């Protein structure tokens, strides 16, 4: 029997637009309407057939009772042939009902899982078309939850809830018809208990809902806390944060416990209460049935049949109320899934993209205006022209927004106005994939996936030969390190690539950039998280890589900054100064102060 919660918390949420969500569910069902409707029909047939069962069973009792009476009176005996005939009919009825139920299960699970499959596929494709700003404003856990919990809830619900709702509705009607066919007086008595059950169910549901909501909220907080603590457990340990983390966990877990036991206790009350009311009706029916049988208004077996119907009558009603509850959470899950699928997508690539084969690496920023939020611009009418092979250093304090320019160049974000040109072609007129193939990135937070070193390096150029990969590694000064590993280029990098250091990862990404051979580079120089020897190798590798390529360097090294053709000085997300080192020093502005604060001591070392 499906619980109101389905054991999943996200399902308790009420949809903002129930009707709208249901319409969307119907829309996704459209391609499978034949199987789905057939599934519902078989569910109905299965129920209709099974509803007759108790009545047939009553006939056996009647036949035995009549035979027994005849034997007592000496006028005959029990007709076993007839009983065998009725039993055979009963077996056939239940077998047929089971067969239809089997077909229904087969069809409905097929349809619901196909929908789950296509929704996950659609969502996966959608994620590639969403602008980066979407991920800035939505927690990863929330997106993951839509992919997993919400789709799962939807699939489970389509599989069980809708057919259960319809089956139970038909079951209620069927029971009612059968009960009326036996005795309207007994039916009237039995029906008195229905409104009482409904009142109790409504009372319990109303009170449990608020606790379910709280439970859901608390569950989210606990999950978030665990995820955060797990992903950063080294940092937590390093800063002796275990106690603080445990205290926070205790607090969140306690809140979850409180809401969970209350909600589940209240929802658990529903069944015994409705059963109690049902039993009261059952007693009444037994008394009235006996009376009517004595008056020979009904057969003896009819009492047994009627009692079976009465006992089972409230069950489908309960299940209908639970199904409606589950349908609410299904609609809420569907709403979250469709909300994701209906998100505004990034501007599609130009239908007539400009594709320049050879790239020189000339980059022009023309009157660029940008803000992460439309009304809050951080780059105001910025223009800059970079010659092929030039180096642009981006400097600024931590958190100054140094990666903004990089993100704009890669078209991770759309400009508010203005344009960026690569070799005279507006990047908006290029396919994103073409643009990104022209630009190589070597970031501090090097991205490597689970696979061999060779596979990771080839990610930069799939068709590269082994020799080309090795050459690239030599240029990046990482070949020697790879040879020190037991399996060399075939060394497997773990899922979290924790088997090599941060600096070595960066060297590998430098090699990957060498292999890709882009004309424009984005480099993020290593900071103090890398040991001195590796840092020197990274510097050498980067210097080699930058030769003859237009480079945008998030610079930390004095030599890079001093030798850069242009320096972009950033503060609080804004470009505050532009010029070369000498020009900016003469200006005695923000750069001058930054330089004096950060690099003055390094001058002698250089």
């Amino acid at each position, binding site marked *: 029997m499906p619980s109101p919660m389905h054991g999943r918390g996200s399902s308790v949420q009420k949809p903002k637009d129930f009707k709208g969500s249901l319409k969307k569910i119907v829309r996704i069902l459209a391609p499978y309407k034949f199987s789905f409707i057939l599934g519902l029909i078989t569910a109905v047939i299965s129920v209709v057939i099974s509803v007759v069962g108790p009545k047939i069973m009553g006939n056996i009792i009647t036949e035995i009772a009549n035979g027994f009476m005849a034997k007592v009176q000496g006028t005959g005996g029990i007709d076993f042939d007839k009983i065998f005939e009725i039993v055979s009919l009963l077996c056939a009825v239940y077998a047929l009902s089971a067969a239809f139920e089997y077909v229904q299960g087969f069809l409905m699970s097929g349809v619901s899982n196909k929908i789950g499959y296509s929704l996950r596929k659609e969502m996966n494709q959608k994620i590639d078309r969403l602008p980066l700003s979407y991920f800035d404003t939505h927690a990863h856990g929330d997106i993951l939850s839509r992919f997993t919990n919400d789709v799962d809830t939807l699939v489970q619900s389509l599989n069980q809830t809708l057919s259960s709702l319809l089956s139970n509705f038909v079951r209620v009607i069927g029971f009612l018809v059968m009960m009326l066919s036996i005795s309207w007086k007994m039916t009237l008595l039995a029906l008195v208990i229905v409104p009482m059950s409904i009142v109790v169910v409504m009372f319990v549901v109303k009170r449990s809902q608020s606790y379910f909501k709280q439970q859901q909220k608390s569950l989210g907080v606990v999950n978030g806390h665990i995820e955060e603590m797990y992903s950063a457990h080294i940092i937590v340990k390093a800063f002796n944060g275990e106690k603080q983390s445990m205290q926070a966990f205790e607090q969140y877990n306690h809140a979850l416990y409180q809401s969970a036991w209350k909600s589940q206790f209240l929802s658990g009350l529903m069944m015994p209460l409705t059963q109690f009311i049902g039993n009261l009706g059952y007693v009444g029916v037994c008394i009235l049935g006996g009376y009517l049988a004595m008056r020979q208004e009904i057969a003896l077996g009819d009492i047994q049949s009627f009692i079976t119907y009465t006992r089972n009558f409230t069950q489908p009603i309960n299940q209908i109320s639970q199904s409606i509850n589950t349908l609410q959470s299904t609609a809420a899950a569907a709403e979250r899934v469709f909300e994701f699928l209906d998100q505004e997508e990034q501007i599609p690539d130009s239908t007539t993209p400009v594709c320049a084969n050879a790239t020189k690496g*000339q980059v022009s920023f023309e009157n660029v205006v940008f803000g992460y939020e439309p009304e809050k611009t951080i780059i105001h009418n910025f223009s800059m022209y970079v010659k092929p092979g030039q180096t642009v250093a981006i400097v600024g304090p931590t958190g100054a927004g140094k990666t903004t320019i990089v993100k704009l160049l890669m078209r991770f974000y759309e400009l508010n106005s203005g344009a960026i*040109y690569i070799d*005279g072609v*507006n990047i908006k007129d290029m396919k994103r994939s073409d643009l990104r193939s022209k630009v190589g990135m070597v970031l501090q937070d090097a991205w490597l996936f689970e696979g061999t070193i060779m596979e990771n390096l080839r990610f930069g150029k799939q068709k590269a030969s082994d020799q080309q990969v090795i050459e690239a590694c030599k240029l990046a000064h990482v070949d020697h390190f790879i040879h020190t590993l037991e399996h060399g280029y075939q060394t497997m990098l773990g899922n979290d690539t924790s088997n090599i250091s941060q600096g070595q990862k960066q060297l590998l990404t430098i090699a990957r950039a060498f292999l890709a051979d882009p004309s424009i580079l984005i480099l993020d120089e290593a900071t103090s998280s890398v040991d001195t020897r590796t840092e020197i190798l990274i510097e050498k590798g980067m210097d080699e890589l930058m030769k003859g390529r237009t480079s945008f360097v998030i610079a930390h090294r004095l030599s890079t900054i001093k030798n850069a053709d242009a320096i972009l000085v950033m503060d609080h997300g804004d470009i505050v100064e532009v010029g070369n080192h000498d020009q900016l020093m003469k200006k005695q502005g923000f750069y001058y102060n930054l330089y004096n604060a950060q690099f003055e001591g390094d001058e002698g070392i250089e």
Partner: protein
Amino acid sequence: MNKVRITLDDYRNLEEACSNIALKLDLENDGINDIPSLQEQLMKISEDIVIELRQINTIPDELLRLQRVFEDLQQNNDHVYLIRGIG
């Protein structure tokens, strides 16, 4: 840095365009009335300049050849930053 806007819609034919472009870009404009002579002078640009090339409406086919001229120029002369104007 100098910035010059060239709107291709302003010209009726190639001869007029070449001559006017030469004028706008301060080129040696004696006898620049066809593409080869314009190309030759454009390659001589030795100071950084931003050329904004605009096309608002449909233009005669012969003028379309000028787009290619500027694309080649951008590829071959590092002093020229070509940008495309919109609308």
